[in-house]
């Protein structure tokens, strides 16, 4: 009986391995046979079209912020759905050990966190404001801002940091950022100039990047806060 069970399991495993491997072999064959001798045409197209935009010199931002803004919009939607799920479940789950846990007292961490946090925050804003000119972007800015808040939570505690940042207000800002991105996408499809998808004016570009940065910052902070709360303290 046991041997039979083992046999069926191995048969199922062999079937799965065979099926997935077949797909892998087909993918490799498609890559080898379907090679385009011209190569990289789409990328060159985006580089060339990026030249026609006046305000954008970072071609990666040109792709995700202007030409393929819908991609970014739906990415933001999926991300905010994940954050929404986490927020709802963290409200449902009673957090018993939220405030009772002890912070580890360390003067070095306290002093360096309060000294370093403004620098990290300013760097995040700089990346959000200058992403159309150089390396950076809203996503990187948001993650850097979230890391800065994590640094602050290391020294002050997650609950205190959440109160200081007025978490409930921040959740509204998150959805405002999403609505703003939606508005830009709608306006960009209504008035397509040189760029289809998003708008390419300088103010819009900076505002889009800041909105993406705020969105990712608040989402990252909400996820971090949930796991910190669940565990007790950092």
């Amino acid at each position, binding site marked *: 009986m046991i041997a039979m069970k083992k046999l069926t399991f191995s048969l199922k495993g062999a079937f799965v391995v065979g099926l997935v491997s077949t797909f892998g072999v087909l993918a490799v064959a498609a890559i080898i046979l379907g090679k385009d001798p011209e190569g990289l045409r789409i990328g060159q197209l985006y580089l060339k079209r990026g030249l026609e935009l006046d305000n954008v010199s970072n071609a*990666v931002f040109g792709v995700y912020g202007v030409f393929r803004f819908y991609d970014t919009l739906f990415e933001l939607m999926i991300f905010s759905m994940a954050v929404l799920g986490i927020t709802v479940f963290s409200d449902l789950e009673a957090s018993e050990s939220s405030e009772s846990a002890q912070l580890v007292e360390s003067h070095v961490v306290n002093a360096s966190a309060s000294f370093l946090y403004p620098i990290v925050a300013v760097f995040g804003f700089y990346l959000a404001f200058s992403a159309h000119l*150089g*390396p950076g972007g809203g996503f990187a800015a948001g993650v850097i801002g979230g890391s800065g808040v994590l640094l602050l939570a290391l020294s002050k505690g997650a609950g205190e940091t959440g109160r200081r940042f007025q978490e409930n207000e921040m959740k509204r800002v998150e959805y405002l950022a999403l609505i703003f991105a939606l508005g830009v996408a709608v306006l960009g499809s209504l008035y397509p100039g040189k760029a289809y998808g998003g708008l390419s004016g300088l103010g819009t570009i900076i505002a889009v990047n800041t909105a993406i940065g705020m969105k990712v910052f608040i989402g990252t902070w909400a996820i971090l806060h949930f796991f910190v709360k669940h565990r007790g303290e950092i």
Partner: protein
Amino acid sequence: MSDFTAAISILIVVVGSIGLILKKNLLMKLLSLSIVNTATILFFVLVVYTPGDRAPIGAYPGIQYADPLPQALVLTSIVINFGVLALSLLFTMVLVKRYHTLDVKKIEELVRKEFEAEGRPASHGD
């Protein structure tokens, strides 16, 4: 891109997918999902890598720039993977809190027992 490196990244995707299907531990499933995502990013990197490319910032004629499209796609992939991983970790935590196990088969059995105790038929069993 050489075919050998592409084959390696596809191989990692295959390994991750097999783990995703066959592993019974939920955390191992999430780990396999992460492996698949990383291999996809590796594939994107290998697709556009050509030696001597410059970062696509500023457009001066005569300089060979890297392809900006996969870089934007990789940004999307990283953020989505972060969100999906966080949400599935949360669901795993909820399941563990309720059933005290990570094994998918055991969770399924416990759910079926709960259904039978309530007098409902176990809907679409497996």
